[in-house]
């Protein structure tokens, strides 16, 4: 049996999350095929260069411009007979479509896998990462969403897989229609794959003050993140949210500024290699997970830090 990995992309590039998912898939020890649903062949061509891949099933159609879960699920169901593992990352794209086709195939999905012990046994965080569960599947076919921060990335260049053009069949399922996107534009690295992340919390006080983080991020080539409180208060866009119900990150360096360290925030960043906390409250729980804590007023610390980098 073979493993099928869903390729995520923006119709220009394959997402870094897919490289980690392929790496996780390789631990299952089976042949790996990729499924690409895109508006042109470009993505399938790029995906065919990912290391360790046998075949790329390429579904090309204008409607795949946006990854509508209903469409993606249909493509997977069409080829499902040949596979016993189906993997995608636990990005919002993966979270949206994986359970949809899992249900169509009558499979109980296993979400947020952080470790593959053997082909039936997996580890995953539960309760905001306060506990780690080991689960064992009794199913012949399995759907896994992969927490990409727990796995390395497969090389994007050394592979040479065969691209197979697939024809798209429509089913009767009713679908939602794409209206528009409002994507955050940034020259900085993407949050979930950045080497360095600097995040602001409620302590930042307003959206304007996030510029204090931008200056440092630019110097360090870092991504900027935020706590839920900062996003809820309108200081930062929703896609900055790090945590249990936002993004999981595990950079080399995570700098938490004006963030108290609630368990829901820690859930998304406590696997970072080095953690720095800047907070004026020396009792703040964030210091419990920080390698380096600096007790101080962020409005004094941040400008000084920027000038000294």
């Amino acid at each position, binding site marked *: 049996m073979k493993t099928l990995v869903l390729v995520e992309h923006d119709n220009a590039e394959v997402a870094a999350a897919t490289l980690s998912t392929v790496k996780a898939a390789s631990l299952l020890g089976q042949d790996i095929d990729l499924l690409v649903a895109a508006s042109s062949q470009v993505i399938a061509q790029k995906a065919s260069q990912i290391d360790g891949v046998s075949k790329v099933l390429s579904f090309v159609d204008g409607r795949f411009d*946006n990854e509508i*879960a209903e469409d993606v699920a249909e493509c997977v169901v069409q080829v499902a007979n040949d596979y016993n593992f189906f993997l995608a990352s*636990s990005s*919002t*794209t993966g*979270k*949206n*479509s*994986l*359970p*949809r086709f*899992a*249900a*169509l195939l*009558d499979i*109980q*999905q296993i*979400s947020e896998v952080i470790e593959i012990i053997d082909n039936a046994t997996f580890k995953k965080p*539960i*309760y*905001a*990462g*306060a*506990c*780690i569960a*080991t*689960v*064992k*599947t*009794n199913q012949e076919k399995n759907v896994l969403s992969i927490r990409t921060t727990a796995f390395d990335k497969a090389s994007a260049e050394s592979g040479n897989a065969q691209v197979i053009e697939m024809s798209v069949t429509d089913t*009767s*399922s*009713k679908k*939602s*229609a*794409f*209206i*528009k*996107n*409002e*994507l955050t534009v940034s020259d900085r690295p993407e949050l*979930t794959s950045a080497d360095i992340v600097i995040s602001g919390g409620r302590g930042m006080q307003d959206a304007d003050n996030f510029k204090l983080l931008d200056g440092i991020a630019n110097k*360090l080539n870092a991504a900027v993140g935020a706590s*839920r409180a900062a996003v*809820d208060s309108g200081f930062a866009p*929703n*896609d900055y949210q790090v945590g249990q*119900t936002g993004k999981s990150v595990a950079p080399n360096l995570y700098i938490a500024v004006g963030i108290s360290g609630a368990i829901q925030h820690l859930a998304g960043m406590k696997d970072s290699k*080095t953690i720095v906390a800047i907070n004026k409250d*020396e009792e703040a729980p964030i*210091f*419990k997970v920080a*390698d*380096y*804590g*600096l*007790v101080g007023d962020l409005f004094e610390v941040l400008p*000084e830090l920027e000038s*000294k*980098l």
Partner: protein
Amino acid sequence: MKILVPIKRVNDYNVKVRPNQSNTDVDLSNVKMAVNPFCEIAIEEAIRIKESGNAEEVVVVTVGDEKHQEQLRTALALGADRAIHVKTENPLQPLDIAKVLVKVFEKESPELVLMGKQGIDGDHNQTGQMLAAMLGLPQATFASKVELQAGSVEVTREIDGGLETLKAELPAIVTTDLRLNEPRYASLPNIMKAKRKPIDELDLDALGVSPKNRVELVAVESPAERQEGIKVESVDELVDKLKNEAKVIE
């Protein structure tokens, strides 16, 4: 229009849940339980839609043991009109919950299902998508804005790159994200009134769903604790440590 809101009973989000003594499961014995926060957001949205005159009835449903009635009462106190309790002693997995909800959907024929994007217990983030798939209906997950139109719903979704807007014909399944609304608190008179609102009880047999244990829990452990680090006295010391000790910046 009728709105169906499936809700989940979970730990209060302030509680740090720990493994039990034998590391076979989590220990919920003395843990305060609550309505899953994302489900509270779904209830709130449904009630607002009703208050705006776009819906006649809000029906909440939960699948679980006797204690789940507490959360149904909370939902009724918040303004739901009626509740359905699908009784089962053992907690079910999302696929089976979705199968139960398919049956409830078929009995109730709602135009809109509003539910949470994820339970903060298992962090599955599956049930809504599964329900939509099984019913062959459109899904709009992670909603931060829900706008009803004639025969359809326009939903703004929180996605990794920013926001996306979809339009789905009704009936549709919508799952809620954090920014959709701020749930209200139940007032004392409404808590009293909720005691008289009806809760229908159903069981799995009557619905024709036989759950399977497809994925077993083998062990539950605490994650590896991080070593608490040191406090630095100054920005200079911080920069020095990052450069020369952690070697994470240049």
